[in-house]
């Protein structure tokens, strides 16, 4: 820098910095020393498996605070157990917003639970950030300014598979297994939309199951006897493993599409039997902690160190722990961008202006972008196929970003 200009530049910088300093603005939940974040997760009850996400988010911010926090402020995550029950979520969210006075909520988990608080959060104008559900309704900036999703939505993902089937197997006869709830039906809808006019003809069998059922063996036999040669498997991990094994054991050899929810090598394919999972097509956006591809990957190495140090009770084969880490990192970025203007409006504004943000636990090529008209942070996924040992990415990163 030119020497004569230096004082001028310094003055200018100071002048620029000063207003920013003067503009230090806070809403409830933020102060010079602390930012309070609310979260609900099922730590008890039948959906407790998801609790791993809440725990890894809390661990992430523990790590962050140890390293000095965000812009000098510590982040305090208050995470409460709603047992996956919508009425309980309503109560706890009111506790977080009205009693604890959190700045925003983050990654509250479940579709029904988030639906229950959707209206309330928007009436109260409290950011309901990065909800942990793939329903499509979270991307509605006009109707619900204060709510934002995070993961690719179920319908988009299903459409990607539909497109792939139309391209590679236009005469396919398709069988679908789905969980009989909002998650399963959302996938099914996206899939049928994706097939378009062909849907009626191509889908030859559909079978649903309830989470309370012990096995899906009967459903697999039903689908097999339809003579389908393509199988779209919309199931949660336990049922996915059962379905993969049952399909293989029954001698049914369809082209098998598996939803992203259950594409973990360690906690789904391995229990099912790796040899039974060969050829499965799925799509991904985060790295699978049990996939050998990422054994020496730098991003995953950092993640493993994080797990060892801050979340030692967590299961390192559980993809939910990668999910929690990644979504927490996204919030960190938003809060960083907020600077000293920690108002709810600004949190929302910054959340809606992420530009190709990357966390190293995301697959290569996947970035997080949002805008005031685009409340869908991750919209890209990549198809991959299982070779008996690990998944192999193929094709390009498919993005719905418009």
């Amino acid at each position, binding site marked *: 820098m030119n020497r004569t200009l230096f004082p001028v530049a310094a003055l200018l910088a100071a002048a620029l910095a000063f207003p920013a300093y003067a503009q230090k603005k806070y809403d409830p939940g933020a102060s010079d020393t602390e930012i309070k974040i609310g979260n609900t997760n099922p730590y008890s009850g039948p959906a407790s498996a998801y609790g791993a996400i809440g725990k890894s988010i809390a661990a992430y911010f523990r790590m962050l605070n140890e390293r000095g926090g965000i812009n000098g402020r510590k982040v305090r995550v208050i995470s409460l157990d709603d047992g996956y029950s919508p009425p309980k979520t309503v109560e706890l969210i009111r506790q977080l917003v009205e009693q604890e006075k959190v700045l925003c909520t983050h990654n509250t988990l479940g579709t029904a639970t988030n639906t229950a608080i959707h209206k309330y959060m928007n009436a109260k104008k409290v950011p309901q950030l990065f909800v942990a559900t793939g329903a499509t309704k979270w991307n509605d900036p006009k109707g619900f300014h204060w709510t934002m999703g995070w993961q690719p939505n179920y319908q988009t993902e299903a459409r990607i598979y539909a497109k792939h089937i139309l391209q590679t197997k236009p005469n396919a006869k398709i069988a679908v297994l789905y969980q*009989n709830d909002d998650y399963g039906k959302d996938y099914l809808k996206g899939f049928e939309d994706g097939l378009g006019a062909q849907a009626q003809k191509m889908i030859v069998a559909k079978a649903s199951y309830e989470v309370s*059922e012990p096995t899906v063996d*009967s*459903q697999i*036999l*039903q689908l097999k006897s339809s003579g389908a040669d393509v199988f779209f498997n919309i199931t949660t991990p336990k049922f996915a*493993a059962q379905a993969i094994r049952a399909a293989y054991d029954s001698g049914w050899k369809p082209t098998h599409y598996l939803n992203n929810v259950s594409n973990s090598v360690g906690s789904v394919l391995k229990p099912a039997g790796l040899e039974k999972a060969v050829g499965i097509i799925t799509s991904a956006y985060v790295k699978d902690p049990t996939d050998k591809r990422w054994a020496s990957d730098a991003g995953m190495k950092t993640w493993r160190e994080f797990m060892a140090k801050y979340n030692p009770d967590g299961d390192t084969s559980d993809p939910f722990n990668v999910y929690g880490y990644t979504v927490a990192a996204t919030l960190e970025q938003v809060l960083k961008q907020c600077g000293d203007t920690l108002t709810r409006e600004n949190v929302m504004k910054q959340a809606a202006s992420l530009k190709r943000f990357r966390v190293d636990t995301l697959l290569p090529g996947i970035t997080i972008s949002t805008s005031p008209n685009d409340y869908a942070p991750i919209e890209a996924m990549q198809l991959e196929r299982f070779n008996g040992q690990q998944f192999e990415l193929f094709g390009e990163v498919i993005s719905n970003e418009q």
Partner: protein
Amino acid sequence: MEAVLLQVLAGLATGSIYASLALALVMIYQATHLVNFAQGEMAMFATYIAWSLVNAGMGYWPAFLLTVLIAFVLGVLIERVVIRPVENAPVLAVVVVFIGLLVILNSIAGWIFSYTIKSFPSPFPAALGIRYMSPHQVGALLVTLLVLALLYVFFRFTPLGLAMRAAAQNPVSSRLVGIRVGWMLALGWGLAAAVGAIAGMMVAPIVYLDPNMMAGILLYAFAAALLGGIDSPGGAVVGGLVVGVLENLLGAFVIGNELKLVVALVLIVGVLLVRPSGFFGSVQVSRV
């Protein structure tokens, strides 16, 4: 026609899952005249013990036997420590203690072993498989029948088994003839826990091991036990198989998957309305 046969065989396989837990329910009922709602969670917990033993390098059968033994001891302990203090409390208070046990075991299993599903080994050789059933499904069915036979012999022909039945049916008279009723109850809990552990180890390879493994199965087992007759081990097995097959046929051919459980339950309750003691249960007579 082949589709029907397939569904029936798959129904028998799932039915044997229900049957094995139903057996444990019948066991505890024989000993205490109560239905233990925590039976499924106890079985799940025992299966985690077996899983840990196998993972620590123990062979399957030694681990199997050791688990059954541990489960037996734990069952006795639970009766002595947790149930004994509420012996004289109202029945529903005891039921609430069962519910307390259920949530404790479920939560602790999740805490220790995490909620990700684990595969559990099957000990049965491939030769056991038949055309439409996997070796494990056939093996599990055989083990269930074997346990049934053992229980039958135990309760029919051994002094201990007879004493246990007597203690449950008429504690006062049993005490008079010198049966230690308190210990009989504890033994009953131990045996039920042991049978439950076997059920868990037979179920886990099919549905995968996780803390909620038994939550869904409990209702089916309960229905099966009542359908067969709550005081009849043979009835529990038949009941389990009937429920498994019924549900599959309803789902595949009659009502669809969405409502198959609802219709199956309506049918079961309907049968019980007509035949309150189930297929093989003894008729209860009460005195004024």
